[in-house]
């Protein structure tokens, strides 16, 4: 079903490309240095936006690859910047960047696998920690499965244990929290649903209850919030949209109203903000554009709802096989 978009504004593609290209030039500003610790993720967000905008070469690939590789540590994981401690968040961004730039072969998959597996704890229950300091979260459960899928080493993880962990984070509203006991939040819903898609256990989801909860995220302004009573934010176009996409319920929200909201949050000088009138940043530029790609806004590449990477990249790597894990009854 193709949606005809009746939007008031246009996507300022060229401006966003410029915005992303200029990010590394803003070195006079404190902001640049205060976000150094997540530089690798910043690059991932910028690259996803560029790929979806069909301008993948707007940034220098060789330079990026060499920088990302410099972020790998002795333990096999990646930090957010050179000489920063390894963490799953930055290992994920690094691997995703290398995948998009067709440079996964430049990293030793077994080394990265070993790092990820070292973060799995088995007692009292299976959890995956973000780093050796012990924080566990459904985000990390997803990331572990995703990273290992790039290297085809997923079966070395206790997948059943991870599924039970995610199941433990499921709540009365059908949503998922950050960990067992945690309140439902759209970002955690995405990571939990994506994790279950990779693990082939989408069946444990209360599809109707969760789809309703996600659909209710759309506010009168067309934007989406992350949980009831909260403000709309452009990034939920991705967190909510991708979960609905995997659940095959994209049509339970109004795509053109959402698109209008995202477009209205653009800065005419380039970049997208969390909501209209706010300062743009690369994170919201990424997830705003990815959210538009999900609802098939014209002029954008298709995006994979599990990996948040261009579908063409996911297919090239044979990682679209998660689609066969979607229960048959969902496609009816």
């Amino acid at each position: 079903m193709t949606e005809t978009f009746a939007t008031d504004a246009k996507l300022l593609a060229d401006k966003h490309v410029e915005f992303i290209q200029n990010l590394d030039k803003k070195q006079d500003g404190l902001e640049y240095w205060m976000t150094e610790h997540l530089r690798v993720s910043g690059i991932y967000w910028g690259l996803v936006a560029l790929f979806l905008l069909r301008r993948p070469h707007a940034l220098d690939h060789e330079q990026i690859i060499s920088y990302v590789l410099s972020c790998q540590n002795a333990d096999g994981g990646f930090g957010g910047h050179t000489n920063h401690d390894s963490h799953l968040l930055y290992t994920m961004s690094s691997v995703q960047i290398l995948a998009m730039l067709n440079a996964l072969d430049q990293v030793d998959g077994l080394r990265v696998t070993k790092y990820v597996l070292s973060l799995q704890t088995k007692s009292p229950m299976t959890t995956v920690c973000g780093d050796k300091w012990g924080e566990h979260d459904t985000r990390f459960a997803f990331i572990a499965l995703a990273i290992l899928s790039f290297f085809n080493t997923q079966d070395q993880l206790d997948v059943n244990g991870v599924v039970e962990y995610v199941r433990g984070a499921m709540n009365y509203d059908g949503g998922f929290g950050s960990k067992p006991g945690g309140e439902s939040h759209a970002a955690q819903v995405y990571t939990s649903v994506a994790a279950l898609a990779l693990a082939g256990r989408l069946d444990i989801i209360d599809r109707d209850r969760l789809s309703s909860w996600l659909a209710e995220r759309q506010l009168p302004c067309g934007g989406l919030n992350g949980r009831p009573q909260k403000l709309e934010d452009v990034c939920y176009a991705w967190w909510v949209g991708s979960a609905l996409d995997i659940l095959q319920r994209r049509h339970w929200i109004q795509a053109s109203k959402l698109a209008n909201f995202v477009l209205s949050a653009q800065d005419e000088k380039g970049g997208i903000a969390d909501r209209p009138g706010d300062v743009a940043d690369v994170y919201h530029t990424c997830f705003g554009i990815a959210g538009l790609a999900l609802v098939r806004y014209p002029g954008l590449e298709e995006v994979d709802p599990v990996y948040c990477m261009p579908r063409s990249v996911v297919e090239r790597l044979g990682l679209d096989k998660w689609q066969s894990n979607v229960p048959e009854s969902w496609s009816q």
Partner: protein
Amino acid sequence: HGRRRQQERKPTQDELQQAKQRVDRFRALNSHVMDLKAKSVFTKDSLDATKRLLEQNTELHTVWNYRRTIFTSLDEWQSQDARQQMLDGELKFLLDIITKNIKSYWMWNHRMWALSSLPRPEWQRELALVAKLLALDARNYHGWDYRRFVVAQLKDAATDKYAVDIQEFAFTTEQINHDCANHSAWHNRSKLLPEILTQRDEDGQLQALQTENDLILNAIYTDPDDQNAWLYYDWLLDIQKSDADRCRLLRNKIAMIRELLELEEDSKRPLIELVSAYAELERLQSGSVLETEKKECLETLRRLEGIDPYRVGRYTDMSRTLSKQWALAA
């Protein structure tokens, strides 16, 4: 998040100078700390350097890691009393800076590490602290996650673990009585109630469920548009002991909805709940829903497409599904 764009004008020479100095100072301190870390310097001085840097940027998780490593490498760490003192100081430091970024995962993680490493942690004090924070921001999930962490520790140390659950349950009651739209409190309650039920006998369980029912009905009547209240009500149905109980509650739900619709007939939430109540009733007890009621459901879904157009997709899907299930024309 949430920073307003401002009218841009060219900065003055003075402002440019000041901005450059800020950047240079931060970069210098950052390089200094990272250099100490690379050289594995674990001294009071390096501890102090990390503190000064973290005060400026609470999100430097590598520096929090380094700070923890310094603590555990100091000689004092081996003495219970010295360790207690150091970590009490650390907790105070964290309290001072948490207001800079109340949603910082790294700071909350560090606090948990400090509490877990304390020879004599004061869990009750932490509970009181979190209660204060939640009074300011009732929906802060970092606060609630931390509260659950503290309660788990209290339970671990307690001889009467059930009493801890009861205390926590009472805390959620307090929160809800203060504001029955506090979804985070209801959520926490949904995790505690099953535990509480297992500790009670049959009569006690029925009583608890009845109390819960009354509480949620009050929330619904207070604000029939509160989606969370209805979700909680449906969950109470899930944890009933029998289908007969579920059907009884569904009939009560329908009666309540009819009351609400008399006050406002185009009320979205009661309307959608009416349809789902009948659908569930028919699913539990085939034939219990009348033909007229089934037709009313389909008509209601049609009306909802107009009342709540953003969710048209959901209503048309429901129409199709129910029509098929009930063998009715859509």
